[in-house]
């Protein structure tokens, strides 16, 4: 296990390094941040002072080297706009985004597993066909459009739920989250549902496909031949087997849930990282953009590792290489 972790960590560092190279050069190719930051009436001297202060007069290779050295010290640069460390800005907004992502994931799984299993067990029934049609809709409707429709129906028309912002924050076992207050839950519900829709659809389809395959396996028939109740057959023998592919996909896509929360956060004015990155792109706040992208990459790499470890727990046939 240690050998496996060591190997994977090295690989992860390599991926992070390559990504930093791509991200850094990519971001430095577009636009001129100085133009955005400086008062149009400022004179040449002021402009040059700002350029020097931001380090933008140095060659790009040197800038990158500085970035890399500082990154190792945990400093991903200072925001041009806020004048604060980029990492700090992002981490401040991370809980809001993580809570949104977790809650949507929770919603997707809670609804998708039963729906998918039902559709897999009774593929010919009308309800199953409805579920599958719904999942195609969930796939193909653009997130921003659905978000706006949600706001129009539930916030404006019916007035049931608030449409913008994060609610009151509560504390439970030392964790601060808006999930712990009623006001917070009412605020998170619409954006979470909006963000969940795509994931929900894909997990429904995945669960259905898994169910259809596993249900015809001999070990399911044998489980029935042992006289187990149908509940036990489905909830243990079937579910444990379909969870293997689902955990992989859900785990790997959790990163994309965070990445794609930008759209939802913008529509619902959710004060998370996603909204920060959009604002930063408008302002060409390079350090924040780079730091954000690096953190997203880090999430993906980290989640990959978690999924691999979960895999070995769920599927005893998979032995971690190097652990023998």
């Amino acid at each position, binding site marked *: 296990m240690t050998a496996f972790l060591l190997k994977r960590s090295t690989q992860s560092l390599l991926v992070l390094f390559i990504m930093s190279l791509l991200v850094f050069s990519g971001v430095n190719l577009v636009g001129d941040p100085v133009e955005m930051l400086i008062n149009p009436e400022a004179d040449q001297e002021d402009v040059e002072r700002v350029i020097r202060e931001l380090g933008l007069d140095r060659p790009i290779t040197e800038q990158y080297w500085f970035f890399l050295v500082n990154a190792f010290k945990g400093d991903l640069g200072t925001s041009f706009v806020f004048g604060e460390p980029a990492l700090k800005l992002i981490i401040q907004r991370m809980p809001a985004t993580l809570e949104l992502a977790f809650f949507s994931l929770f919603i997707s799984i809670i609804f998708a597993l039963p729906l998918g299993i039902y559709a897999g067990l009774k593929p010919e029934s009308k309800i199953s066909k409805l579920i599958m049609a719904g999942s195609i809709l969930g796939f193909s409707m653009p997130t921003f459009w659905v978000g706006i429709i949600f706001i129009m129906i539930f916030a404006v028309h019916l007035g049931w739920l608030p449409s913008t912002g994060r609610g009151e924050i509560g504390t439970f076992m030392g964790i601060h989250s808006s999930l712990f207050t009623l006001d917070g839950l009412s605020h998170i519900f619409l954006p979470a549902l909006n963000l969940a829709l795509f994931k929900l659809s894909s997990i429904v389809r995945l669960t259905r496909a898994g169910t259809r395959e596993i249900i015809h*396996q*001999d*070990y399911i*028939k*044998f*489980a*029935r*031949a*042992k*006289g*187990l*109740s149908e509940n*036990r057959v489905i909830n*243990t*023998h079937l579910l*444990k*087997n379909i969870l*293997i592919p689902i955990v992989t996909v859900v785990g790997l896509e959790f990163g994309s849930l965070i990445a794609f929360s930008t759209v939802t956060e913008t529509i619902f004015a959710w004060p998370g990282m996603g909204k920060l990155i959009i604002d930063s792109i408008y302002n060409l706040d390079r350090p924040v953009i780079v730091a954000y992208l690096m953190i997203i990459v880090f999430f993906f790499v980290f989640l990959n590792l978690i999924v691999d470890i979960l895999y070995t727990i*769920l*599927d*005893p*046939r998979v032995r971690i290489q190097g652990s023998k």
Partner: protein
Amino acid sequence: MDNILKIENLKTHFFTKNGILKAVDDISFNIKRGEIVGLVGESGSGKSITGFSIMGLIDAPGKIVSGNILFNNHPLLNYTPDQMRNLRGNKLAMIFQDPMMTLNPVLRIDTQMIETIKAHDKTISVRNAFEIARDTLGLVGISSPEERMKAYPHQFSGGMRQRVSIAIAMLNKPDLIIADEPTTALDVTIQGQVIYEMQELCKKTGTALLWITHDLAVVAGIASRICVMYAGRIVEQGSVKEIINNPMHPYTIGLIKSVPSQNKRGEPLHQIEGMVPSMLNLPDGCAFHDRCNQATNNCKNSKPLETNFSKTRVIRCFNFER
């Protein structure tokens, strides 16, 4: 008559898009308490479907269309689904062909055994169930069963896995085990061991056995009676001696001729002419007529009925006396 199982005119048909497939078509046979009966036939002749029909495990598009299954004199076709569930794995158990596929790959052996006990005895403690399971595992020849209980199926060889399946079938001391080609997927040496062990176990516990196989030689060694199945029907049944020494149905005669044996060494193996017919469009009349060298016009046009030749012997053929 002390029959543990009595099957009368059982028909199990599959209503497929391409027509009605008569997988089991009017079969009747009995198994006495503690008796071992062999059900022999080529692949696709309806042996497994016979087993699943008894177990009440026929799924759509399949359906038992008529007949009777009496288990311990109780008509199983009148049982509610829950009564059937309670019988399965309890007094009536089944073992499948491929030991690599019958155990759930993600559940430990102890889980898969204990759940089988608890499904039929809600009040038993996990500790007690564990002990019963462990002892049964020892009974089927698995060494250090206490430790092996913690293992996953992939940590066992094929032969060992089949022993685990046998142990699971034996857990609740069944009156009848349906063994569906339990040794077909195993190496020949292991095959012999498993057959011997099962025979001994059943003798010891008084469990009756329906041994399904395509291998006449295997079943001749352990069964007391044999049913020969062809295209969904039992064409001939009788004691092992009757069937092996004096086969009467042309299909059985062909089957026995095609078994390799000591005193025919060097001679080319016999082969039954023609092909197994497609179950979806069986010929009119006797399903075997176009492969039979004694077939007459009668065989082509009308289905032979079952004839009781002796007390133990039943044949479905017009021409067997010749």
